[in-house]
């Protein structure tokens, strides 16, 4: 099974929400399956997504008012729930991306510290 392969990343708490928001902003309205597939593709299949978990994230974001949902028809004529990012969601996303950037910079600098004595 893929799970045992060390190359794949386990998602940090809260990162999934950010990925979902970013995906919706760049792709426009999508259904749950589409979002999950898109995240897998973008990550180059490095992220192991238990696709079912995407729905917990979606309902959370929806309750916060960052995304909205409505029932529609998919490209192959199936009834599906489409999610799209709201204006408030975009604002939130921008703030979170900035946070991530800062954290990533910081981590980069901490990791780059030279070893003792070298």
């Amino acid at each position, binding site marked *: 099974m893929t799970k045992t392969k060390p190359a794949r990343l386990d998602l940090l708490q809260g990162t999934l929400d950010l990925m979902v928001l970013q995906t919706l902003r760049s792709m426009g309205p999508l259904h749950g399956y589409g979002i999950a597939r898109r995240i897998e593709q973008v990550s180059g299949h490095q992220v192991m997504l238990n*696709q079912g978990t995407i*729905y917990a994230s979606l309902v959370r974001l929806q309750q916060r*008012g960052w995304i909205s949902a409505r029932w529609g028809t998919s490209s192959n004529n199936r009834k599906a729930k489409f999610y799209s990012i709201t204006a408030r969601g975009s604002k939130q996303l921008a703030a979170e991306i900035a946070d991530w950037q800062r954290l990533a910079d910081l981590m980069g600098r901490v990791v780059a510290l030279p070893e003792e004595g070298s």
Partner: protein
Amino acid sequence: MSAVRRAIARVAAVFRRADLDRDLDDELATHVELATEENLQRGMTAADARRAAVASLGSPIAAREQHRESRGLPGLDSILQDLRYGIRGMRRDAGLTAFAVLIIGLGVGASSTVFNVFNALLLRPLPFTDSTRLAWIANGELENLSAQTVQVDNLLDFRRQSQSFAAVEGYSPFYGQGDVRLTGADQPERLTAVPVTERFFPLLGIEPVLGRVFTAEESLWNAPPTAILSHRFWVRCFAAAPDVVGTAMVLDGAPVTVVGVLPESFDFTAVFAPGTGADLFVPYPLSPETNRRGNTLALLGRLNPGVRVDEAQVEADLIAERIRGAERRNEFRPTIAPLRERVSGEFRRALLVLAGAVGFLMLLVCANLSNLLLARASGRHREMAIRAALGAGRPRLVRQMLIESLCLSSVGAAVGLALAVGGTRLVAGIEGMSVPLLQAVRVDLDVLGFCLLVAVATGIVVGLAPALQTSALAPHLALKQGGRGAVGGSGRDWMRRSLVVCEVALACLLVTGAALFGRSLVRVLEVDLGFRTDDILALRIDPGREYSTHAQRTAYFDQILDRVRAVPGVEAVGLTDALPLGDNYGWRLWNVGVAGRAYDRGQKPLALVRIVDDGYIPAMRITVDAGRTFSANDTSESEPVIIVNEPLARRLWPEADPVGRRVEIMGRERRVVGVVREVRYFALEQASGPEMYLPIRQIPDYSSVDLVVSASLPPAAMAPGLRAALAEIDPTLPAADFRTMR
């Protein structure tokens, strides 16, 4: 912001659980289908495509659990589950449930009703603007109304000099029930008019709903008469006509202009004269004429902001010192107390006792129920053990048991609330009881809150013992021991035994209390009133304005007495200005001294005044201990006479026989012709003290006259004949309201 939205959405999600689950199931189904199609396009076989799709989704059950957890309130969910279980348990154990609900209901009903009265009398602010600043300014400390009232000039001086009070106003408590006669309407009727000073209503913060309050001109001596109507009277007599202001009504034969109508929320008598009625308010002038009447005003003051009662008292003492001894001045010893204390202070102790009794009752209910639940819980050890074995922690088990007992207590409290609503109606509807503010007793948010509190507290108290007990046992022991239901451990026995002891102790306490209360009640009922109460009818027959001279009035009385004596069934007839257990008139006090003796200021004895005719004492069967009663020969031409009661006789002549001795009243000497027993005028349990009887034919100084008829037939059979006899003399006499003395 988004956190608030989320919280609301989460709570909502708990209640839309089924909908949301179905939504998610649809979404997951779509998900699998979309994935399967994509897999097919990649060239998988149908079976493989579907299997791979399902695998990539992961467990749908886990997905649903995650969904529920992130959208709803996981804690609330399990509480709801416990609740459902608790309700199912209540239905299963219907007998126990019914019993528990019943006794909790009784307990909650009783305690809520008492709380309600407590709240209205002692907690809730009086129904006036900024009522904590209102103070009662009594004169002296006697319980007696006459001695508490203040003379007009003393009021004026006090008002002028006081810095502590923003305003000082008053009303005259010496009005009588039904003092004023309304004619000109369909039925002549007796009304009660309360004289108040000009700014009395503004002092309380009462705004008329129609018209205005009195003006300074209307409050002058001899001003054209005006009146402000109580809301109830306005509705009753004017059918709430909006154009009543400015109209005139005929009171005692003279037109009186209506200037205003008071709001419905203002109930004068509920606060100042409980158990009586007040139909209208008339101005009480502060003039030399009213000053001469002596102590006539009950004073109220509004303290300036930040002034304490004790500070006002210090200042009042100084002012009283300054104005003492002025011309024609009565004694003024101001005693200032918060209005609430004056209104309901005397009920504080009784209410505390009652609240205590109800508290004990509630404890008894709790102990009883707790015991019951313990007994039931011992049958549930197995169930609890299985739950524990399946992984429920002790807090979870305790919580479940508590939720069950809370269910019970909540249903009980709902029943209790219904009882409290009824009880409150009953209490608020008690008429003629001298408890103030009862009309203000109603079911409101306070009571609901109280009920809720009692319900929760009861639920926890009742459920805690069984919950802790049941969950305490290690599962393997319980399963072994509970093979056939309950085998009581020694710990449980200890707990139940002490509960039973508590119950018995509490029950004893309550029974003892109730017995004591009952005994004092019996004592009150058995008290010798000093007069007869059965088959006595009383009716106000004040002579109207047309009888202006003493002779005319005497003739009017004679006429009435003659006619009434002729009515079949009448045994005796009398007249009095102060009916026992009647209203304020019985409070009139005059100085009386032994003739020829000099008294120091304030040392002269005071006695209650009763102006009666020769028939009154025999008709009421008041016992004559010495001498004689009045006779028809005691007239304005004959020697002035008086009858004293025993306490007064002892006070004036501690050693000697009073009959034949002389007293001095209002500068006039009178000979004592008789001594009578004491009569309970004010309340069954309260002796009156010194009283004196003066013949109505010698002293025309009465403000109301009651006809007293003792009959050999029951009152209902007498009334029509009496009514017919009276109508012959004065058809405007409101003969509808005969009163009995029982």
